[in-house]
């Protein structure tokens, strides 16, 4: 029941926020903030809660469409709770980053923001594949509106590209889901879309591979991984800051979550065969996108490419499919959620102040905006994987796990860390050091971070330091889930692991 409450608070909060605009255009942001904060507080109930042996903390299963055995099945285990916490936390940050930036049509903006969050929470808790797909698509539409209405100069193109990429690959996943349900029908004589029922379906290996590919393409588009990543730089560079925060911090994680929860456990054998390809794609993402990031002059595009590069570590960890690698993937998801969101907020903040994202116009900002510069340095260093911060733990564990699966690919992937240092420090060098010239932009609004901004960045810094210094508190939460998943599928993969 608590899961329904979590989702409905956001849905209703969205409607309320929209309606409250009629009273005053400043109300929606307050309503939105209240809704997300309440959501986060309600979630806290789940954090301390004791999971039974199965790892599921809460479950809710109600009939929805009996004709096809579709149920309204929500459940949360440690992994879901971690992801939900990230969602709610970044939700607050997103509201904060939109606080002053969004001045037009505020009601509809916060409506979309909250509905995106609601869709994401739904994705992280749905255990009926039809319901999962439902939420998967529901989070797209408000995000499309956020980019298309409040975006920058090329928003129509970016929003359209984002929507078409995710929707078309989503349809492939729908076909896979339906095919899986149909094979369940053939084997057991009744339709079911339930996760636990579908886990029992066994098909011939060729069919399993095709169905798995449907899931994989949808999830790796969302992740995104090479070669499906090209929507991300456009979407990020055009989205308003809050949109970027949600995209980078939360929406990308739904892809990784889908791989962990659905793509591998549902198709262990096909995934095992496919793992070398997936890991290769991950390594290509890491290296290629790091290289491309280096060639960008648009600061948001640059951060977007680094996102793709970092998410490569997640995919590498997932397809190595052992405990360390998976823990690493989950940690990277959390840490990257914070660091990428913070970097996008910084880029958005800069754009808000000087109306350009072009790094060629920037330089020498440190003396002008020391606090902003320091925060930027902190998160750049976090992103490049400095020990002591969350990203390092995640990427290190992912590489450690991947090393057991494939030495060659891990060695190649490790170069990504070096590239990350190069482009991160290069950005710092280019934007904050050097000679200050304001010939290319109007610097009348170039003021330092406000107190509210410092508060948000401070919260994210604490989060990253916590993850870096005491990762165990996060690892403990997801470990039951991950060991359960490994126990179900591990036998198959372990045998193969040595060959990879």
């Amino acid at each position, binding site marked *: 029941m608590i899961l329904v409450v979590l989702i409905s608070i956001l849905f209703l909060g969205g409607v309320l926020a929209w309606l409250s605009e009629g009273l005053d255009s400043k109300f929606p942001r307050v309503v939105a903030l209240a809704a997300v904060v309440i959501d986060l507080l309600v979630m806290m109930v789940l954090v301390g809660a004791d999971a039974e042996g199965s790892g599921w903390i809460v479950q809710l299963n109600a009939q929805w469409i009996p*004709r096809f055995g579709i149920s309204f099945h929500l459940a949360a285990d440690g992994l879901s709770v971690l992801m939900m916490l990230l969602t709610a936390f970044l939700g607050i940050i997103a509201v904060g980053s939109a606080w002053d930036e969004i001045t037009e049509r505020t009601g509809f903006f916060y409506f979309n923001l909250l509905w995106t969050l609601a869709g994401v929470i739904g994705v992280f808790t749905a255990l009926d594949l039809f319901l999962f797909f439902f939420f998967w698509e*529901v989070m797209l539409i408000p995000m499309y509106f956020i980019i298309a209405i409040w975006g920058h100069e090329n928003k129509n193109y970016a929003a359209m590209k984002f929507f078409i990429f995710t*929707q*078309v690959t989503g349809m*492939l996943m*729908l076909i896979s889901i*339906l*095919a899986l349900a149909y094979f369940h029908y053939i084997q057991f004589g009744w339709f079911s879309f339930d996760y636990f029922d579908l886990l029992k379906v066994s098909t011939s290996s060729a069919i399993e591979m095709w169905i798995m590919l449907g899931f994989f393409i949808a999830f790796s588009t969302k992740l995104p991984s090479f070669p499906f990543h090209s929507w991300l730089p456009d979407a990020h560079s055009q989205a308003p800051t809050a949109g970027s925060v949600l995209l980078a911090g939360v929406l990308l994680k739904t892809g990784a979550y889908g791989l962990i929860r659905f793509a591998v456990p549902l198709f262990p054998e096909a995934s095992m065969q496919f793992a070398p390809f997936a890991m290769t794609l991950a390594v290509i993402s890491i290296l290629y996108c790091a290289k491309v990031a280096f060639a960008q002059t648009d600061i948001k595009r640059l951060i977007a490419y680094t996102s793709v590069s970092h998410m490569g570590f997640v995919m590498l960890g997932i397809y190595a499919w052992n405990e360390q690698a998976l823990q690493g993937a989950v940690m990277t998801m959390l840490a990257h959620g914070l660091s990428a969101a913070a970097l996008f907020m910084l880029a958005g903040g800069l754009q808000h102040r000087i109306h350009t994202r072009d790094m060629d116009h920037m330089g020498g900002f440190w003396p002008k905006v020391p606090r902003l510069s320091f925060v930027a340095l902190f998160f750049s260093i976090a992103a490049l994987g400095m020990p002591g911060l969350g990203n390092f733990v995640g990427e290190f564990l992912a590489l450690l796990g991947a090393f057991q699966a494939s030495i060659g690919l891990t060695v190649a992937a490790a170069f990504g860390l070096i590239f990350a240092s190069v482009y991160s420090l290069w950005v710092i060098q280019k934007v904050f050091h050097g000679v200050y010239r304001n010939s290319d932009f109007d610097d009348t609004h170039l003021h330092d971070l406000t107190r509210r901004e410092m508060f948000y960045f401070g919260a994210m810094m604490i989060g990253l330091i916590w993850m870096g210094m005491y990762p165990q508190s996060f690892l403990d939460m997801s470990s039951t889930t991950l060991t359960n998943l490994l126990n179900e599928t591990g036998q198959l993969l372990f045998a193969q692991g040595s060959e990879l």
Partner: protein
Amino acid sequence: MITSFNDLLPLMPLLIVTATSVIAMLMIGIRRSYITTGSITITGLLAATLVAVSMMDWTNQQVTPLLIIDQYSLLFTVVVCASAMVLAVLSFPYFFELDDQREEYFLLLTVATIGAIVMVSSNHFVSTVLGLETLSMSLYGMIAYPLHSAKSAKFPLEAAVKYLVLSAAASGFILFGMALIYAQTGTLSFASVTELPAAGLGDSYTIIALLMVVSGMAFKLSLAPFHMWTPDVYEGAPLPATAYLATIGKAAMFVVLLRFVQISEALSFDSMVTVLTLIAAASMLAGNLLALLQDNLKRILAYSSIAHMGYLLLALVAGHHVTGTIAVEAITFYLIAYVIMSLGAFGVASVISSSEKEFDSIKEYRGLFWRNPLLATTFIAMLLSLAGIPLTIGFIGKFYIFLSGIEAGLWVLLGVLVLGSGIGLYYYLRIIYRMFMPEKHSQPYRVGGVESVSSYGVLAILLFLLLLFGVYPAPIMSIVATASAYI
């Protein structure tokens, strides 16, 4: 044989609509009043809808060899009558300021509905032709209705003549196909095709006959490559008539096609399967690709309807490969979904237009969301539903089509469907994007004319149904499932 009054009971909806048209005609003779004629039409259609709903549980019989009144035909009688009523409500403000006689429009609309009811209840070639021609003849009139209006800027005559000529040619094809079948069997019921005498003229002869019938029907359904007339007729006709043609006209025709293909087992010939597969693929691709290039809303909807008929045809082909009724259910559900979302989309366009000036360029929808959020939200929901996005009935419809395609193992067609839908997203999003652009205050968002509360009412009902069946489809699914068992 009809021997007693009881035998006439199953025909009640048909009789009510017929009576409505007679009463409306007499009223016009006595005193011309737009409001009276409109009210009579709307009341009559509402009564027919309600009677048909109440009959669904207990009526299942063949009335004369021509008409079958079972749950399936009654389900579509409800759909046809309710849609006609919605269109009558929407037409009322649209034609209110027409500088010509306005009352006969409702007469045409009612008579067309009689034709549509006959079509959905038909399992015999004679009733098919009677229904089809009644529907088409009335449609010619509806399309050309603002002909004598001095202010009407559109080209209703061009549209009507185009539709008349091509539709007559298509009817010719259907009749010729029927004649070929009749030449072998001596009867005109759909079932006769399965009873072809072994010593007849042979399979190739039958295939030619079936092809003629099917291609004639494909003309009416505007399936590629028989779709050329669609955009021009849609564009030239007044909006409510376009909506009638696009919703009731297509749905009734598809029900006939479905019954014909199922009863006559036309797909037992491999060549028929091939032909229908090709038509389905061509329609999905052609419809979606050609819509990309359009700036006119009616033309976009015309091309998108071609694609949607292609999706339906996919399920029809799947029906041959699957056991059980999933394909028929898919077609039934999708047709209902298609009618609801098309009515909504055309409805919004017709609310902001009038017979003097139609807002049919997508440019004119710029900023609609900020000026009239209710209309724009309805329109967006309808467009997203046409694109098959969850929370809407269109998604559940797509779900059905996908499921029947998967059960039948039609992987190539499914691939084309994914491709086509992906392309389709582009032009739906283009319209939606326009509605969110900042408004230009210099332009009014709607043409003057009258604004009727009831139009907003029916649009609200359509939106409610769209979302209800999209989020909680279980009740309608069970109705569709029981009805589909009758095919």
